[in-house]
């Protein structure tokens, strides 16, 4: 969704004129200041989400944020929306329960690479396979930021972390490839430098029915940037500027990240396909079950179904 220069200027003026922070109404002001370090990329992802939310035509009270545990997991605590901060790894199944019990909700899971792909790795592939109507935003900072910078499921080979003092011997996951292979209907990767494309990707995710996945490559200067020669947050953003290649048609097998200074980061909106969402298909089950039951009870299927729908609440 393109935004005109004029609009951007207006927004900027608004800030200057009112000394109100533009995200005030969507942040829980009474919870600020937040816990994130200077130069951390999580804040940019949150701002992109909030800006997408402002442009979304889904009513504000239907937007829900669910997080797991970690620095990124704290996002749920700062947005002034119905928000659920769950257990480590379980944001997606928790969100699955929310989304199925109330299909009007626009549920966004905001969590870290460790939360979503190590301890919670089993859930994301199954949620994608089922195509539950969830938006998953993963802030990938290549380590467990919250617990002091240990390596995780996306840490590249050779990277230094507090538990790979001699360099990592494992390969990191290539997240867009994994999400696409698992069945996500929308897959994108941007970095915390790419504020507008990220915001627009999130907006697109709101529009899609089914599981969408957005990776946000982010600096964690405190635990990953410094030991891996990426420097402070701004240095890492500068490197993103130089090394990112936008390629929406990239071969997903080829876009794994080494995070070495001499490498490229391929970003883009890679997958945007249609596939019926879980509840859409489950509706079939409900129709069949109610048809069978009414046949068994020798009640006209029409009247029976109407009754069942009346009792089941909103259509």
């Amino acid at each position, binding site marked *: 969704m393109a935004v005109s220069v004029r609009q951007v200027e207006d927004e900027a003026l608004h800030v200057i004129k009112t000394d109100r922070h533009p995200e005030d109404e969507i942040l829980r002001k009474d919870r600020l200041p937040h816990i994130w370090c200077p130069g951390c990329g999580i804040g940019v992802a949150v701002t992109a989400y909030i800006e997408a939310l402002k442009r979304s035509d889904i009513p504000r009270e239907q937007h829900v944020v669910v997080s797991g545990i970690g620095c990124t997991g704290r996002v749920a605590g700062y947005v002034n929306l119905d*928000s659920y*901060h769950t257990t480590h790894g379980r944001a997606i*199944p928790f969100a*699955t*329960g929310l989304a199925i019990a*109330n299909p009007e*909700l626009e549920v966004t899971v905001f969590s870290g690479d460790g939360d979503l792909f190590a301890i919670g790795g089993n859930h994301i592939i199954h949620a994608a396979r089922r195509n539950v109507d969830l938006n998953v935003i993963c802030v990938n900072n290549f380590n467990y930021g919250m617990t002091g910078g240990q390596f995780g499921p996306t840490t590249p080979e050779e990277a230094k972390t507090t538990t790979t003092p001699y360099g990592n011997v494992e390969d990191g996951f290539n997240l867009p490839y994994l999400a696409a292979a698992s069945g996500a209907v929308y897959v994108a990767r941007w970095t915390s430098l790419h504020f507008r494309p990220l915001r627009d990707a999130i907006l697109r995710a709101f529009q899609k029915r089914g599981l969408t996945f957005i990776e946000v490559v982010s600096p964690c200067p405190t635990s990953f940037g410094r030991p891996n020669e990426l420097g402070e947050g701004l240095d890492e953003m500068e490197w993103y500027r130089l090394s990112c290649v936008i390629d929406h048609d990239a071969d997903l097998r080829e876009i794994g990240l080494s995070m070495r200074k001499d490498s490229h980061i391929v970003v883009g909106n890679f997958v945007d396909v249609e596939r019926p969402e879980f509840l859409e298909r489950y509706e079939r089950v409900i129709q069949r079950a109610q048809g069978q039951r009414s046949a068994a009870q020798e009640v006209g299927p029409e009247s029976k179904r109407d009754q069942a729908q009346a009792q089941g609440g909103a*259509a």
Partner: protein
Amino acid sequence: MRKLLAPEGVDREAVLAGEHFMTGDDACAEGAIAAGCRFYAGYPITPSSEIAERMAKRLPQVGGVYIQMEDELASMAAIIGASCAGAKAMTATSGPGFSLMQENIGLAFMMEAPCVVVDVQRGGPSTGLPTLLGQSDMMQARFGSHGDYAVIAYAPASPQEMFDLTVKAFNMAERFRTPVLVMADELVGHMSERVVIDPDKIEIERRPRPEAKPAEGARILPFGANGRGENGVPPMPLAGEGYRVHFTGLTHDERGYPQIDPETQERMIRRKIRKIWDHRDEIVEYEEVELDDAPIVLVAYGSTARAALRALRLARERGLRVGMLRLITAWPFPGRKVEELKDRELIVPEVNAGQMAREVERWARKPVHRVNRLGGAPIAPEEILQKIEEVA
């Protein structure tokens, strides 16, 4: 697409009224449907799988959703999520799955999210005896999740009770905004008996809900009862209603905001425990059988209580005055009742190495007589009778 909001009262269309011959597992599923459960998330495991199978068949008939998750961690998390959106939600499992659910049972306690967890116990530890009886998760039911918490756990002894106590479990979960456990066992789950389902006798409770309408600026306190609200249970706002709530597993204040300090820990965790503990007289249930004149009392629960009852009859035929205290709630434990019996000889038969016997001893303040099996087969009435004769 429909919302799975819990029905207001008894949904007569959905209840399988009548007299049936059915297994305990099936009766449990019917109890859930009758109580208004419209969301089930689970992962199959013997001897509880029949509950999942019946829910898969029955839920879509009544406009509900059965979802088979990838594991029990996910199942438990999913029912809490569904509960936060207003559904009555349940999962069922057995020992290995119950272990996997423990962390999130703690989350349900912390978030004060009503939900029901059924454990059809088999022999453990580990994979143990997948198809055979056990009662060895009774202490895990009480202490399985980390941290200090309180829990409500029922121990059904018949298919009829699998129905009745599942309904009750939902009611207590809603009344107290808390997870409730149904600690069944393989024998009760798989036996078939008469089950009477009478919609006129079913009571439906719903969680306390905020009265104030959500308005910009006007906030409610989703965790704020602090002993003053009805039953010390704060009203529960649901996702999507506009209250903009925050629920977290971190220690939090009345607003739900994380507050990591010893004072909040004392205030909030104590309130969550006390809302159950202070109402234990209202929650605790037991059955007394010929207690009055009995110097010897059997304390039993679940399927073992049936063997105990038979032993009691055989003993009485032989002129031995034996009574029974049958636990219907294992937790909270009927401690005061056991205290009253402290001058009797107490025999605790159970299919484990002596789990509830410890709790009986704690309240009776003396050692009790035990009859144990570590699982695989029920304790025979004769084994209990033999112990009675030893003690007499």
